[in-house]
């Protein structure tokens, strides 16, 4: 009897104890923070082009990083090249254009593959004969692994196959903003609704990430340009995303030093370009579909951030004349 009551007490204690765990677990997550070097696209580009990263091949401690490398390999039919995309390409707009170009070429030319000579000359991670001391073993290595002579055009393949990696990488790290932003573009090529849902999940997980808002805004803008889509239904969402992207971006942008905000901690060239795009597009949308007074006000405010932006200046003049 005593033993049973002792057991019962222990079980009761266990139940009580376990009841409190979700309360703690749901209140705190040390991984949920904005930014960080591991997620920063420029820092990733620097470390992946470093000599040490080349030594390590695909090995990384961050699973999301490994998966991002994987997506690059998939686009090149498995061939491992030294990362060769410039920082500008990391911006949302450029990325969208790159995704479109990549997939339209593949769709138009071949069934799933195309040779792209524009990046020929990029070094492969497995060196060619002239740079490889291993002789017989080097030859076997190049035969067994996907490898192309660096002087030849890159073999680009269908980007659809990347999609699972974006799903897994954002599941693994829900604060990996670039995973949502780039993945959003790729998914949109196949299913716009699925892409919007994916981006909405990204916004839920990263309410301060202006680039996901911008990606969704640009996606909606593309949809609105299609004749079959009712514009008015999308307009509110579209303006909402651009307003939020611009607001968040302006708030996060550091004060410029010598007229430059980029290259300061936590802010890079591609973020600057994205903010430029968000502000400029918002003003143009307000002018065309919204309120001219609001467009005037916004143009004036954003010129304080980007004084060299001629589009904003023109809108300011035009709306002033209209008024």
């Amino acid at each position, binding site marked *: 009897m005593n033993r049973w009551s002792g057991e019962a007490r222990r079980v009761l204690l266990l139940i009580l104890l376990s009841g409190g765990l979700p309360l703690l677990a749901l209140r705190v997550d040390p991984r949920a923070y904005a930014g960080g070097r591991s997620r920063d696209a420029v820092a990733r580009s620097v470390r992946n082009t470093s*000599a040490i990263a*080349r*030594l*390590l*091949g*695909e*090995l990384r401690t961050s699973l999301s990083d490994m998966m991002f490398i994987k997506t690059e*390999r*998939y686009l090149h*039919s*498995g061939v491992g090249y030294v990362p060769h995309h410039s920082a500008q390409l990391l911006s949302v707009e450029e990325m969208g254009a790159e995704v479109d170009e990549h997939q339209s070429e593949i769709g138009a030319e071949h069934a*799933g*593959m195309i040779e792209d000579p524009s990046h020929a000359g990029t070094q492969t*991670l*497995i*060196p060619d004969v002239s740079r*490889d*001391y*291993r002789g*017989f*073993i*080097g030859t*076997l*290595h190049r*035969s*067994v*692994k*996907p490898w192309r002579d660096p002087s030849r055009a890159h*073999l680009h*393949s269908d980007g*659809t*196959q990347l*999609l*699972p*990696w974006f*799903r897994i990488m954002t599941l693994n790290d829900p604060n990996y903003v670039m995973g949502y932003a780039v993945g959003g573009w790729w*998914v949109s090529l*196949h*299913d716009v609704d*699925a*892409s919007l849902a*994916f981006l909405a999940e990204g916004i839920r997980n990263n309410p301060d990430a202006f680039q996901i808002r911008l990606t969704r805004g640009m996606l909606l803008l593309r949809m609105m340009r299609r004749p079959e889509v009712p514009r008015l239904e999308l307009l509110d969402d579209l303006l909402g995303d651009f307003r939020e992207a611009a607001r968040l971006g302006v708030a996060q942008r550091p004060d410029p030093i010598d007229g430059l905000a980029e290259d300061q901690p936590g802010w890079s060239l591609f973020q600057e370009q994205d903010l430029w795009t968000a502000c400029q597009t918002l003003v143009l949308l307000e002018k065309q579909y919204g309120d001219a007074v609001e467009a005037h006000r916004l143009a004036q405010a954003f010129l304080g951030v980007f004084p060299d932006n001629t589009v904003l200046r023109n809108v300011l003049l035009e709306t002033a004349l209209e008024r």
Partner: protein
Amino acid sequence: MKGRAIRFIAGTVLRESLRRREIYVLVLVACGLIAVILGFDFFGIGGLTKFYREASLKVMGWTTAFAVIVLATRQLPREMENRTIYPLLARPIRRVEFLLGKLVGVLLAGLFCFALFMLIFLLGSLRIQATVPWGLFLQHMYLQLAMLAILSALGFLLSLVVHTDAAITICVLLYALSAVLATVLVHLYAYMDAVGRVLLQILTYAVPQLTLFDLSAKAVHAEAWSPLSWQIMLSLTVYAVVYTGVYFAGAFVLFRRRAL
């Protein structure tokens, strides 16, 4: 050398490994993982075969390698610890036949593991209507078996030199870091002086480059690559035979010297 004796020992190893059910558990867990991959909804888009191929081949490769490493490194220490080796050696079986039988048995267990996986992989491919790149796929399987032969022989050798756990660790590290080892060696060369370069050359040939037996990347992107030529396959086979032979010979020398 008696084929019968080798067959007898190999059969015992295979039966023992199947009886212990460790392989089934590993296969079951791996199948569970493959089932999860298959059941995952990727934005409701079908035809995403590369991810399935990549994940399945990786799971299959890792699981089989792990099972074979554990099996190989435990063979000799366990027989000696449990004293079951004495009745075996009391029979008219030479030590080389005993060791060879063990190697064949371990490889047969690996093959059994692979066969189970292959069946599940093919069923999965059928379910998602993915084409199987047969040429590259079969070559990959063959090369993986060749690599398992190297690992098994190395496992025998190490289990006679160091503790079982240490032998398992070395084999697992060699397998897990094989791709990194190859890239480190090739890229480090540029940073080394003359002595360092000679050392790297020695290391390149002294340590088996197991990544050469991993054709999974080509099998995943099979649309872009054709199967390996017979010359390359032959070279890889010779490469595997040489390393297996060297490690096996080392294990045999140590085993023969051991007082039982």
